[in-house]
């Protein structure tokens, strides 16, 4: 899906992309109002990029990044507004505001799913997600092929998704 910034393309059908960003954001934040805002804003920014005359050939990749930044901006804003409770939050070891949005149950479900995984797969998921190690670095550390590591990450993510779904956590209705 290439968008070359041509005006005739400004009338193109953005609904697949809107749906995608809406769903992505909804899944992360569980807030329909924000999902809608982020989706609209993402498309606006993409159109602006296009108007700059630079052809966009990675529309979905870019949308993913823009939506991510908008979500993070939102977290930051809420954190700033929540400043008063911040020190209490830390002292009582309560989760940070963005974690509250995600929900304690989600964390518990995912921990359980991680515990059930084969040790190697769990280790690889932790290295990838927590330590931000690349698949190549993990492969070198553990003496595996990069393909094997990628396979474990993929399978691990599917395991987590399944646990999430079974628990009802991951099944949010879009409106």
């Amino acid at each position: 899906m290439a968008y070359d910034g041509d005006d005739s393309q400004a009338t193109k059908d953005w609904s697949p992309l809107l749906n995608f960003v809406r769903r992505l954001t909804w899944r992360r934040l569980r807030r329909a109002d924000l999902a809608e805002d982020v989706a609209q804003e993402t498309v606006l920014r993409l159109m602006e990029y296009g108007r700059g005359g630079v052809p966009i050939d990675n529309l979905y990749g870019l949308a993913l990044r823009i939506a991510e930044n908008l979500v993070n901006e939102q977290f930051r804003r809420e954190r700033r507004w929540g400043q008063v409770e911040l020190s209490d939050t830390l002292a009582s070891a309560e989760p940070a505001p963005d974690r509250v949005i995600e929900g304690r149950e989600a964390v518990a479900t995912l921990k359980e799913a991680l515990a059930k995984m084969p040790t190697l797969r769990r280790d690889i998921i932790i290295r990838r997600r927590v330590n931000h190690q690349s698949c190549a670095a993990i492969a070198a550390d553990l003496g595996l092929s990069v393909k094997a590591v990628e396979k474990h990450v993929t399978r691990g993510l599917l395991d987590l998704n399944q646990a999430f779904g079974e628990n009802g956590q991951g099944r949010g209705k879009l409106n």
Partner: protein
Amino acid sequence: MKTDQKRIMAEAAAWVDWSARSDVSTAEAAAFERWMGESEANRQAFADLAALWRSDALGEAAADVAAARFKRRGYNPPWRFVIPSTVAAAMAALAVLYVPWMDHRTLVTERAAPSDTVLADGSLVRLSGGSRLVVRQSPMGRNVTLELGEAFFDVRHDGRPFAVSAGEGRVRVMGTAFNVDRLSSGRTEVALYRGAVRVRGRSKETMDISPGERVIVDRGRLSRGAPLSASKPDWIDGWFDTQDASLAHLVEEIDRFSAKPIVVDSAVRRMRISGRFQVGEPRAVLALIETAYGVQVVEESDRIRIERR
């Protein structure tokens, strides 16, 4: 039908892993666009899995599981962690001199390769990339010196004091979790997440900090920094969260995760930055500051330079 959905989910999961990488080729990017353009089912599967992978819930769950693993390991006989695996001669010496509370070694991390280590006393040290830490644990006390970079400590209480030296600052603790960031400007930042620590500057001046507080040691002098906004250091999850930092400081944070050194021209070093940056993905951060702050990022063969546009 069912197997079709399975195939889509597997493909989506592979794309999610791909999208979290920093080195993606244009051919792969084009293949991703094609795949996403194929069907609504593809896009939905990707959205669901990407949201899950990036969620703070997963970050927290995985970090908790990782931390629990360290705690369990701590109960194992400590010699496991005492013997440096590479030095055969030292192994023989240690076998004779071995006492459970001794741990002498230097931990070094390469650029872009943070690592976790459990010390002989069961304390956890998480070293960021491009860091160096000298460990000296004896029956009398536990001392570490952060010579370079940044480290997070989760200290096990065992009656002996645990001291961290960094530049002209010194932190003394009992059982506690804190972060020490040694910046090349000569400043050292100490952030406390649990317990209590006392920081000492050059002139024996001390400052006690409580959880959620940050102290800055600059040329041996102590001052209070902005309060913390999370329950563990940002860089552990790959984030740098600031409301007022210089561009030079932000770059120092992402530089540790970058395979190529990143340098900042003096003209833009002092530019003020605020926001939440995913330092674990240096390229994404560079792209972001390039658009948001109007600087130019120039990639050279052996380094990445940031200059005024």
